[in-house]
C-alpha cells in the first residue's frame, strides 16, 4: 500500500506540474475569476436541497495569517438528507472461511467415502496393466492412436477378469485456451477410451469417464513436447 500511495503521490505531483501552466491561461480567458463576489455568496445562490433535520456543521473560523477578503462562513455548508444507513453489508466484513476450510488430504478423504475405487492389486504376471496407463493424443483430437492399442488391451483384459475392479478414465488437455473448454475436450478424450473399452467387453459399471482438463499437467513446460505429454487419458484404479 505504501508503494502504491507513493506512486499515486508521484503521479499527482507530476500531473500537478504538468497542468498548472495550462490552467493559468484558461483562467485569463474566462474572466469569471476576476469577479470579486465572495465564494460564499455564490454558494448561497445555488438552489440548495432541503435539509431534513440535519444540523449545520460546527462553525469555526480558522486563523489566517494573511487577511483574505473571502472568508467563507460555515453554515452555508449543509449536507443533503442521509441517503444510506447501514451501508456495509455484513457480508463484506464477515466473510468466514469455509468450515473445515482445508480440504483433507486425499487419503483421509478416501477413507470417508462410501464408494472407494478398488485399489489395484499389483500382479506379478506380465499381464499387469499397472506399468502403462497413459494414452496420448494428437492436438485437438480424441482419436486413439494405434500405438496405444496394446495399453488398452492390457487394461481391458484385467477388468474383464476382475469384475469387481473399477477404473476412472481421466481425460487431460494441454494448457492452451479456456479451462472450461479444455475440461470438455478432456472429457471427450476420456469418453473415447471409455467407448473403446466398452466395445471390447468391459461393462459400463466398471468405468467412469471424467475430465481434469488442463489442471493436472504431467509436464510444466510451454512447448510442443510438454503439450504432447499433457494431452492424455490416464487409467486410474
Amino acid at each position, binding site marked *: *500500500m505504501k508503494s502504491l500511495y507513493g*506512486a499515486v*503521490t508521484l*503521479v*499527482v505531483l507530476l*500531473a*500537478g506540474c504538468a497542468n*498548472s501552466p495550462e*490552467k*493559468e491561461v484558461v*483562467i485569463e480567458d474566462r474572466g469569471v*475569476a476576476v469577479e470579486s463576489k465572495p*465564494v460564499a455568496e*455564490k*454558494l448561497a445562490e*445555488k438552489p440548495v436541497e432541503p435539509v431534513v433535520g440535519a444540523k449545520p456543521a*460546527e462553525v*469555526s473560523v480558522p486563523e489566517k495569517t494573511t487577511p*483574505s477578503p473571502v472568508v*467563507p*462562513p*460555515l453554515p452555508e455548508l*449543509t449536507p*443533503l438528507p*442521509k441517503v*444510506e*444507513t447501514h*451501508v*456495509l*453489508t455484513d*457480508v*463484506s*466484513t*464477515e*466473510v*468466514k*472461511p*469455509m*468450515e473445515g*476450510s*482445508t*480440504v*483433507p488430504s486425499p487419503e483421509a*478423504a478416501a*477413507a470417508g467415502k462410501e464408494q472407494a475405487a478398488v485399489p489395484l492389486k499389483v500382479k506379478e504376471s506380465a499381464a499387469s496393466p499397472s506399468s502403462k496407463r497413459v494414452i496420448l493424443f494428437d492436438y485437438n483430437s480424441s482419436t486413439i492412436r494405434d500405438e496405444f492399442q496394446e495399453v488398452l488391451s492390457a487394461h481391458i483384459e484385467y477388468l474383464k477378469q476382475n469384475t469387481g475392479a473399477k477404473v*476412472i478414465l*481421466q481425460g487431460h488437455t494441454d494448457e492452451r*485456451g*479456456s479451462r*472450461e*473448454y479444455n*475440461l*470438455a475436450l478432456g*472429457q471427450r478424450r476420456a469418453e473415447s477410451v471409455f467407448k473403446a473399452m466398452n466395445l471390447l467387453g468391459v461393462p459400463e459399471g466398471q468405468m467412469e*469417464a*471424467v*475430465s*481434469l*482438463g488442463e489442471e*493436472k499437467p504431467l509436464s510444466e513446460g510451454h512447448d510442443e513436447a510438454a503439450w504432447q505429454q499433457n494431452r492424455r487419458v490416464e487409467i486410474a484404479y
Partner: protein
Amino acid sequence: MLLFRITLLFFVMASLALPARALMTIEIVGGANNKVALAVLPFVLSQAGMSDPAETIVGDLGRSGYFTLMENQGLPSLQALQTPNLLEWKNKGADAVVLGQVLPAQNGRLEVRFWLFDAVRQTQLTALSYTTSPAGLRAVAHRISDQIHEKLLGEPGAYSGRIAYILKQSSRFELQVADADSRNAVTVMSSTEPIISPSWSPDGRKLAYVSFEDKKPVVYVQNLGEGSRRAVAHFRGSNSAPAWSPDGRRLAVALSKDATSQIYLLDLESGEARRFTQGGALDTEPVFSPDGKWLYFTSDRGGSPQIYRAALETGEASRITFDGGYNVSPALSADGRMLAFVHRREGRFHIAVIELSSRQMRVLTDTQHDESPSFASNGRQILYATLVNGRGVLATVSVDGKIRQRLSQSGDLREPAWGR
C-alpha cells in the same frame, strides 16, 4: 477419525491465523485523454489514529486513469471543516474539490459526510452522508469514490465491488475474495487440488465454483457469510461451468452425465437438472443475459469453438462470433449490451468485446494468454487473467482498450470474477 478431526482443526486454525496478503498493483498503463484534476482534502476525523477515507478515495480515483489527483502540500490539514476557497483551487488548476469529515454516531457507529465542489463553476455538486460501523469506513470511502466518479464523469463508478479469484502457491490452491482494489483479501476455501470457475450469486452472498478435491470436477455453492457449502452438481462424469440465473434460483452448468459436455439448468432448491442443449457437440461456459431471457455459451457444433446464444424459452440457438476459429468464455456486461470473450488470433489468446447491437468486435489486449474475462459493475472495465513471464497475474482493461492495470502476487493468480 478423531485424529483426522484434530488434524482438520489444526489446518482450519492455521489458515485463520494467516492473513491473506493484499495483491500489489504493479502497473497502471494509459489513461483518459482529458483527465479531471481533482483535489481530495484530508477528511476531518473524529479521533486520532482513525483511517482517513481520503486516502482510499485518492487511491481509487488515481488508479482509474480518469483523474489527476492534486497533492495537498502547502495547505494546512483541516482541523475543522470549512468551505474551501474554490477560486484558489481553480487557480491552482483543480476542476473539482472534495472534502469530508467523520463524526461519531449512535451505538459506536460513525457518520461520514462528504462534499463535492465544481471548482470551475464554483458550485456544490453533491453532499452525502453515510453511517457505518468503524470496520466499514473503507467500504464507505469506496462508495464515495463511486459518487465522485459518477458526478464528474457521468457514468457510475465501480470501486465498491469485490473480486473472487484463485491463488496457487506451490501445491496449494486458495479461493480468495478481496475488495475491488485488492485489499482485505480473505481465503474462503483452500485445497490441495485445483479450484476453477468461481461465480458470484446475484446477491453477492454466495460463490459457486468447481473443485477437483474428489478427483473429478464437482460444482459447489458456498455461503460466504456462514462459511458453509454443499455440492450441487456431483453427477457421474464431470460437472463444471456454473453460472447463476438473475433471480439466483438456478445454476446453468455443464454436465457429462448423459453426453460428453452439455448444458443443464439446475434448480438449486429441488436439485433437479434439466437438459438445455441438445446434440453431440461440446457445449459449455453458459452465462445468462441480465434480463434472464438468453443463455450465451461456447459450442463447437459448427466445427470450431464459437459463442452462441439461445433463447431460454425456446432453446433456439444462433451464432454470435464469426471472426477466427476460436472464440470462447463469454461474459456479459450488467446492462446486457456488451459481450467480452477470449479470441484466438495467430495462436495467441486475447480479450475481445462485441457490442451486441452492432455486432462490432474489438480486440482489447496485447497480452497473449488471456482467460476468464468478467465485467466491472459499470460495464466499463474487464477483469481477466493472463501470464506475464510465465506467472499468472490478474489484469484489467477498459472497454476502449486504453487503460490497463495489472495485479500480481507471489504465486499464480487465475480465474478472477468481478462481483457486486
